[in-house]
């Protein structure tokens, strides 16, 4: 399945990329599994970043939330607006 992955703020800066479209292997079916898989693909900051947040289709989700074909999945640090 194919998904769009977005990164923001310090995470985007550390990875040097803001978005990418990826074909996921079988076995990557949750936000947490996607994070682990990405970390193993050379995006180590996803493994080491503390308190990383994840959104699927622009809703904040927990690590066990499913990801599906065509989803937009974002990883980002805790928010600091206001």
């Amino acid at each position: 399945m194919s998904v769009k992955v977005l990164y923001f703020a310090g995470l985007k800066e550390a990875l040097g990329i803001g978005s990418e479209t990826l074909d996921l292997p079988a076995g990557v079916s949750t936000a947490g599994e996607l994070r682990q898989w990405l970390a193993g693909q050379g995006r180590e900051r996803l493994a080491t970043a503390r308190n990383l947040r994840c959104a699927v289709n622009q809703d904040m989700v927990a690590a066990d939330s499913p990801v599906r074909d065509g989803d937009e999945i974002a990883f980002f640090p805790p928010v600091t607006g206001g």
Partner: protein
Amino acid sequence: MTVRVQEADFDIGAELAALRAGDARIGALASFMGLVRDINDGAGVSEMTLEHYPGMTEKALKEIVAEAQSRWDIYGALVIHRVGPLKPCDQIVLVAVTSAHRGEAFAACEFIMDFLKTRAPFWKRETTPDGARWVDARDSDNSAAERWAE
């Protein structure tokens, strides 16, 4: 309800006048404005840049305002949040709420701000004499949001 994310500055007087215009039910208007300070965590700040997640940020703000509308009897609500480069003394955010009486307006305004600080995807990067740095989230902001748990 009005939610706007924009680079441009805004006129608080004009915004508050528009929010309550012609509505004689309104007996109270509470507002909060956030501003850029020239110091943070012990370092001077000469510039700040606000990044956001286009699409999700607006959606998150609308959901926060909708939650406030479901909790309190309020008439109108306005959220304006700026993004892009800002300087000390600049306006960052305006939240304003109207209601019949002050209690609802005060509470809903504070609730919206507390949730904006912890749920809406904005990130601050500030320039200090030692270089640029991303601002860390504060535990006190999480505590502020958690006190609204039902």
